[in-house]
């Protein structure tokens, strides 16, 4: 069953809803593990050899593979099942969330202020079209809702189904993994001010405050509904985080005011133009010696064409219009114009913190960059990819 949310905004789902969510979780795990393996076998055994015989050469790019696979029955069923499972992840929670939305608002009002975090909204902030008009990840309504908790609650509850238990009990495994990576890899680094960019409901912001309890943690996003929800969520967990409605490409923080700027699955949601602006802002707000840590999709240059084709599925079918451009880009080249030096760029992969023994996690956190075929794929036994920059 979906791991119940473990914070003060959690709602009680009816038995039949839980059963439906269980089904969707089972479907997603089946698609992402079993069907994905079946599709890979079909590719290795039939599609790739047939293409090589016909063309006199192997596949040279993920795009060639994609075009070929469009006519393959296994790909068609894999894609149809995955697309429907994605839709059903949100659909399985929306009726419950909508019916409990007043209860969530009452809980939030009672909670706010208990952990000494804060919420600062900016009604004058102009939201980008990819937030207002695009249902990213097929989430109905997108990330902004009419001044209430709906979008945040749908996202939080839907993510427990979408992640199929792979992101831990607080759906914060990405934040946990990267915060503990920094703590293990850079034991001398002790950030006092941290900002998490593109934080949505702050589920990956919380681990930074927990791992570095002496730090003041800020979390920013352009959409107000997830921030409003995320503020109450963090407060209910007793974790002080300062949420701001703020554009990461134009932050209101002062120059050299941050020790650490982090983000998780954020850059591939914005255009390359905005990524360049983001890096410029990061460089501006970071103190000398400060660090930028980014959890992202694995770059295409490190992967075989088939694995790139597999990851690109989201770009074509999951309403992620910037996904491919980001994966095909060189993060360092995007960051250099901001002032970051090439010698201060580093890349790494980490295992899942909530699924790995602490001693083993610490050992792996100190290893150099290593990739496997599943790096960056949401599935069992995955590793996350990240990169960092020192100012």
């Amino acid at each position, binding site marked *: 069953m979906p791991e119940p949310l473990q914070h003060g905004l959690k709602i009680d789902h009816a038995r039949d809803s839980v059963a439906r969510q269980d*089904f969707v979780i089972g479907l997603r795990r089946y698609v992402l593990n079993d069907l994905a393996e079946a599709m890979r076998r079909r590719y290795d055994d039939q599609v790739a050899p047939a293409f090589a015989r016909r063309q006199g050469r192997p596949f040279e790019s993920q795009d060639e593979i994609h075009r070929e696979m*469009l006519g393959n029955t296994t790909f068609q069923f894999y894609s149809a099942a995955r697309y429907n499972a994605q839709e059903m992840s949100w659909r399985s929670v929306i009726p419950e969330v909508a019916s409990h939305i007043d209860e969530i608002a009452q809980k939030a009002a009672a909670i706010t202020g208990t952990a000494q975090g804060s919420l600062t909204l900016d009604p004058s902030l102009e939201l980008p079209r990819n937030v207002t*008009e695009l249902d990213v990840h097929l989430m*109905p309504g997108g990330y902004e809702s009419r001044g209430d908790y709906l979008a945040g609650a749908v996202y939080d509850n839907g993510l427990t189904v979408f992640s199929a238990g792979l992101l831990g009990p607080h759906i914060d495994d990405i934040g946990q993994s990267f915060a503990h990576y920094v703590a293990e890899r850079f034991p001398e680094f002790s950030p006092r001010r941290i900002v998490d960019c593109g934080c949505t409901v702050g589920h990956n912001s919380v681990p930074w405050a927990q791992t570095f309890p002496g730090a003041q943690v800020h979390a920013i996003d352009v959409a107000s509904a997830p921030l409003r929800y995320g503020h109450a969520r963090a407060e209910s967990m007793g974790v002080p985080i300062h949420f701001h409605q703020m554009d990461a490409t134009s932050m209101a923080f002062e120059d050299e005011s941050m020790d650490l700027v982090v983000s998780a699955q954020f850059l591939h949601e914005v255009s390359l133009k905005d990524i360049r602006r983001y890096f410029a802002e990061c460089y501006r707000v970071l103190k000398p010696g400060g660090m930028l840590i980014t959890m992202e999709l694995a770059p295409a240059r490190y992967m075989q064409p088939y694995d790139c084709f597999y990851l690109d599925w989201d770009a074509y079918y999951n309403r992620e219009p*910037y996904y491919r451009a980001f994966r095909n880009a060189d993060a360092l080249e995007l960051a250099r114009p901001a002032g970051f030096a090439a010698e201060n760029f580093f890349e790494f992969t980490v295992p899942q913190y909530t699924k790995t023994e602490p001693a083993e996690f610490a050992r792996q956190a100190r290893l150099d960059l290593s990739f496997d075929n599943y790096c960056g794929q949401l599935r069992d036994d995955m590793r996350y990819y990240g990169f960092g920059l020192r100012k």
Partner: protein
Amino acid sequence: MSEIPMTSRTDSEAIALLKRQAARRPEFFSESGLDQMFSLVMELAAEVWVLRERVFAIESVTGAEDGAMAARVAAWQPSVQEAATLAEMRHAMLQNLFRTIDTGMPAAAYEGETADPIPPERSVR
């Protein structure tokens, strides 16, 4: 309202959100209508699972060996009110099953920036 759409009524807010879709759905199969059929089967599979779990729960709560309970279930007839409730539940279930055919989706699809100029020929129609 705390039930799911296929087995109970939903409020207007949930229905509106469930129907909201910013762009057209992709078609993975070359045969017309097969994508909708696939969605229908997936929804039906979810509903079957929900019912299987509920039957399992009923048997667990009452005891599967309870012959008297089984006889009462076999002899059961819905009241007028119960029949009306079941009719509403069936209608909600059918609405959900046919959600990809009767979407209520606006005609205009999102025309924002795309990441790459090579959309696959059948990815979005």
